[in-house]
């Protein structure tokens, strides 16, 4: 095995291509820019296409078109750019298109948008939140797989640290189940047959006047229920006899896990739980992990978003409190002072002291 030093952006682009991604479109924005650059550099050699779109609205539209013709396609952005894509993400989910979206977020404050959908209507897309570059390489491949398996967009939730941290890694192709042939895409060959296809989000069927959105959307809801049942993933450590359970995702989890290991090394009873999928949220696993703890301490780099899902999982069985918060560098890229092992350790220790006391 030879590891190569790759920043997260490069590793993710390579993993995507290894997973069969052949189309990418994006618009530069820190810290997403390098992902676009790596796709632009690498895709043409694999017979793929990368378009430097003139805006995020156009980027997601291009990816939509590529997806609809049956090719694995992706886009991405950050912050404002992701917001601009919400209309399309909602509709693409309902058009059942297997898009992969890279949100290289500025911090973790897009949790609600990622997990509830910032767009209109009832829809959900899967969200994978890798903890480091090594896991990101797996997640990207898993994302394309799940997207196609469920015909549903999948979002990779990363951040500045994930995109820019370089690690010595290897992009090893994952072993994944064989998926059935794509039979829903349009390639033009059904035209003129009397039985064409129409890829749409509201239940239009060629030859049938009018639409029936209720039936169509209820079927989607059932699909989303099935995804929720089967695709939740998590990682946990040292939960057995923990007094305080630290819950964190993505880069913050990397800090949390390190702190928990440090404290456990000193014999202190803290546990660690990480939702690997943010949607579906691993509620059952978290409820189980939280059993018997005195406090659940939620470490997220925002004003308090995932804490809703933690509370919805624990449902009053233990007090849940926030030990993270808003934290930013001067440029607003999300590399704030909270990202510090000592500082986080201090907060976990404070939670240990409070125990089951204050709520």
């Amino acid at each position: 095995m030879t590891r190569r030093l790759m920043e997260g952006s490069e590793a993710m682009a390579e993993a995507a291509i290894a997973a069969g991604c052949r189309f990418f479109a994006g618009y530069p924005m820190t810290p997403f820019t390098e992902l676009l650059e790596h796709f632009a550099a690498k895709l043409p050699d694999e017979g793929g296409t990368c378009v430097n779109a003139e805006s995020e609205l156009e980027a997601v539209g291009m990816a939509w078109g590529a997806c609809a013709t049956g090719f694995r396609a992706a886009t991405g952005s950050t912050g404002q750019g992701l917001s601009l894509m919400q209309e399309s993400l909602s509709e693409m989910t309902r058009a059942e298109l297997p898009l992969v979206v890279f949100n290289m977020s500025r911090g973790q404050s897009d949790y609600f948008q990622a997990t509830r959908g910032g767009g209109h209507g009832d829809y959900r897309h899967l969200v994978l939140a890798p903890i480091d570059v090594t896991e990101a390489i797996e997640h990207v491949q898993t994302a394309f797989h799940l997207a196609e398996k469920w015909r549903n967009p999948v979002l990779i939730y990363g951040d500045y640290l994930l995109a820019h941290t370089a690690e010595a890694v290897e992009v090893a192709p994952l072993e994944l189940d064989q998926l059935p042939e794509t039979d829903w895409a349009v390639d033009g060959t059904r035209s003129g047959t009397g039985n064409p296809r129409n890829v749409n989000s509201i239940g239009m069927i060629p030859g049938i006047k009018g639409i029936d959105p209720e039936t169509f959307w209820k079927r989607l809801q059932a699909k989303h229920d099935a995804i929720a049942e089967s695709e939740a993933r998590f990682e946990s450590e040292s939960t057995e006899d923990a007094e305080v359970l630290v819950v964190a995702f993505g880069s913050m989890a990397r800090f949390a896990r390190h702190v928990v290991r440090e404290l456990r090394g000193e014999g202190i009873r803290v546990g660690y739980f990480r939702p690997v999928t943010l949607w579906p949220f691993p509620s059952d696993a978290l409820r189980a992990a939280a059993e018997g703890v005195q406090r659940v301490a939620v470490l997220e780099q925002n004003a308090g978003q995932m804490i809703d899902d933690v509370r919805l999982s624990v449902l009053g069985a233990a007090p849940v409190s926030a030990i993270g918060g808003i934290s930013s560098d001067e440029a607003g890229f999300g590399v704030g002072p909270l990202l510090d092992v000592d500082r986080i350790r201090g907060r976990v220790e404070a939670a240990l002291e409070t125990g089951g006391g204050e709520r």
Partner: protein
Amino acid sequence: MEREILLTGIGGQGVQLAAEVLARAATREQRHVMTLGTYGGTMRGGNTDACIVIADTAISTPPLVSRAWAGFGMHPRYWEPVSEKLRPSGVAALNSSLFAEFDGAREDVTPLRVDTDALATEADAPMGGALVLAAAFSAATVLVTFDSLVEAMNEALPPYRRQHAEANTRALHAGWAAVETPITDAWNPGATT
């Protein structure tokens, strides 16, 4: 063994390239490596920092460390927070052209002073100060070999910077040659001179 190195300088000094070269060199030597560059504010003006972790085994620490084995200072303006994070008996590699005197607060770390400006100018690599220091630092800590550094530098240059390869090599050479004996052995600390 986990070796954390914190680099700091100001925009345009080449600190990011130096960090990448060190990290790539260590990768070539089969170590586990993680590195992250950060900028104060934007890419223009302000500080330019980086963190490198090189280890024998898989790395658990996050890419922004609270404590480090070595500091690498190209400019004193943002040196203090780096200095505070150094472990006792760590190493401080300093661009003595700008660090007039060593930061007295940390008498428990071993300084390595390199007149990078002079060496770089001498080597006809005026933009290569950070590479001079990186090479000197590597030589002084037995962190990576000279060959790895040169190969890593070539790997790190984007196509539109290829023309700098030769000057960079000269800079690395100047830094490496400036160290007579190592001050410590990163991977074999018992063998410290």
